[in-house]
């Protein structure tokens, strides 16, 4: 009994510490985004709150928390308040299967990849609920777009992940990292990596696929009626998903916490965290880089790209990996 209680407390502590680190990461990711985009656009960015704008995210967060959470008339109040909570919960729960080093993971499950796929598919409901319950035309259009977009890109994302699962022979993220000890997957499977990155942009509703919140068309998309904490929750969820996608990309394709046998991949050295962190920061930087560079796709072009380009490519890669694995099993 005592061991069980101890186990529960450890798990809760682990999960809380994970959430808090994610929140801090998200806060400083928003600052990094603003600073990086500022540098790309020849301006300074936030520099007033704290040195180099260091406390800007905290000030922004405080402002959103203090602001009134307006519930407009003729809104489905229950769903309207539930949607941001749901979205944020899902965004956080995805982190439970992410390993940060060998054995440093809350839930080391064998179907980690599938779990993440399920979570990302479920998070569509948050956007649909938000858009539908808002009783606003812009929000409604935004949520429709979000649903279509996330489902379309989930398909190709899933096929890419299945290819890797078949190649590795396991859906456990730690094992996927171990397989990449000598060669990162981005080298042999660079088309998959590219497709995964682009699908990740679409999955997290980032530029050039930020149709759900396209400012020039839909004002703010599905979260147009939200203010204060509700908006903050959507915002944090979006950036959490972005960080998760960056981390996920580094685990799947950039060799996770390994760096050319610089440190043994299964050791408990603290350097491993930094290696994974640097890789994640690099991918997150690419997310911002893309946003500062590219215009936005139109809705039909996005669908064409998803169904006519990515799906056939992902499907053929999946069939290729399946065949290789089957033939390999038969021969050897």
């Amino acid at each position, binding site marked *: 009994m005592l061991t069980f209680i101890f186990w529960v407390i450890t798990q809760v502590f682990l999960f809380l510490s994970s959430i808090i680190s994610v929140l801090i990461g998200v806060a400083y990711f928003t600052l990094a985004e603003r600073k990086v985009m500022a540098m790309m656009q020849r301006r300074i960015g936030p520099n007033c709150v704290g040195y180099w704008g260091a406390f800007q995210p905290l000030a922004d967060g405080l402002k959103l928390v203090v602001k009134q959470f307006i519930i407009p008339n003729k809104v489905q109040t229950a769903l309207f308040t539930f949607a941001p909570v749901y979205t944020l919960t899902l965004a956080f729960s995805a982190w439970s299967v992410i390993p940060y080093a060998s054995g440093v993971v809350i839930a080391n499950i064998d179907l980690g990849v599938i779990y993440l796929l399920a979570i990302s598919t479920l998070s569509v409901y948050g956007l649909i609920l938000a858009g539908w319950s808002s009783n606003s035309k812009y929000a409604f259009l935004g949520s429709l777009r979000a649903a279509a977009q996330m489902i379309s890109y989930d398909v190709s994302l899933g096929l890419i992940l299945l290819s890797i699962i078949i190649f590795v022979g396991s859906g456990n993220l730690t094992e996927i990292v171990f397989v990449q000890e000598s060669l990162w997957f981005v080298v042999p499977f660079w088309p998959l990596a590219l497709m995964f990155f682009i699908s990740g942009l679409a999955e997290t509703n980032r530029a050039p696929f930020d149709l759900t919140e*396209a*400012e*020039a068309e839909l*004002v703010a998309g599905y979260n147009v009626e939200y203010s204060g904490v509700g908006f903050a929750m959507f915002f944090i969820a979006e950036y959490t998903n972005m960080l998760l996608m960056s981390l996920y990309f580094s685990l799947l394709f950039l060799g996770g916490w390994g760096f050319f046998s610089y440190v043994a991949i299964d050791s408990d050295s603290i350097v491993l965290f930094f290696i994974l962190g640097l890789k994640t920061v690099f991918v997150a930087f690419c997310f911002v880089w893309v946003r500062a*560079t*590219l*215009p936005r796709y139109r809705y039909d072009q996005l669908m064409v790209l998803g169904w006519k380009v990515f799906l056939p490519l992902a499907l053929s890669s999946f069939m290729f990996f399946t065949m290789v694995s089957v033939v390999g099993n038969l021969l050897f």
Partner: protein
Amino acid sequence: MLKILVEKKYIYKAGLNIKCFGSSAVVVPTLFKTRLADLREFRLFTLNFGPQHPAAHGVLRLILTLDGENIISADSHIGLLHRGTEKLMEYRTYLAGLPYLDRLDYVSMLSQEYALICAIESSNQLVCPKRLQYWRVISLELTRLLNHLMAVTTHALDVGALTPFLYGFEEREKIMEFYERLSGARMHAAWMRPGGVSQDIMLGFADDVYTFCMQFINRIDEIEELLSSNRIWKQRLVDVGVITYEQALNWGASGPILRSVGCSWDLRYTQPTDVYSELVFSIPTGSRGDCFERYLIRMYEMRESVSIIFQCLELLGKEDVQYLVDDTKTINSKQKMYGSMEELITHFKAYQEGFSLPAGLTYSATEAPKGEFGVLLYSDGSNKPYRCKLKTPGFTHLQMLPVFSVGHMIADVSTIIGTLDIVFGEVDR
């Protein structure tokens, strides 16, 4: 519009009928039948686009009727920024009416002042000194840069490219500082006067304009690197908002929109004022009449404007120094009035009473960056216009919005509003 709507409804009904009742052998349950009857009543989605919409470029209220994401009709409601400029100008002397023109299209101020000045000058047979004509042309071309930077970069912002906007606005800031050095005001210059300008050019101004133009071409290149060959940018712009040659003429289009259909109509060339006839410049025209060509035309026009400024700067060096016209009819020298009582009285009367135009009708149009900007003055011989009518390009172009946008998707509406380059100061007047 109505026709398209009816046709679409008809197609849907036909489609449903074929799908569900195509085979006569199928027995349709009654319940299902009634539900199908409900289904047949399609309700289109009406969206109130604006007046606070971020892509509305001001206070455009646009009633969009949507079928899914497709535009069935676009109905623009204007007048939210109506300030009665034309009426106000009828109650003021000609010179006192001049600053109102700055406030019409507040991104190309001097071009509009220039139209009024041209009307007064042609009516009173005034000729501006040659040197100031060059400076006027330089200021007009700087205004064109100011406007096109705004047009292209906010267009890019509407399409989702964030960075060109900030590149462009840094350059706009520099041009606004030139405005400040010309007239003392960053935006609403009120700098032009009949037969001259309000104050002489500062020492060293030409050098700075030269330095600015030298680096400006690189800035245009940077913006073009981000956009012109970008595949997403092309996908969003090519074959979007297409109009034909006839449509453009029938709807009264001018400026880059008219030139995009292949009509090489530019008032700087066809009806040159001041020193434009001495300058060499080309008029870019398109052939497809889509948004991408209008973007390319604007970019090219900026390069041409820089070339015109260089030519003017070079020709200026060959001119003799000549000061403002000292004519009580138009403008008095401020310098003398501080020393002599009589001069002070003359100055006071000149500004209080203004000058008069001979009775009759004058229309004068200039090639403003957005298109043809015209001023029609009907004078009864007094010091105020009996009637003043302004022909603004934005108003003409905005009414073409349904022509451009019907059949496209909702995302294209913001592309089209961007390419129309409208400013509500001049649309609503």
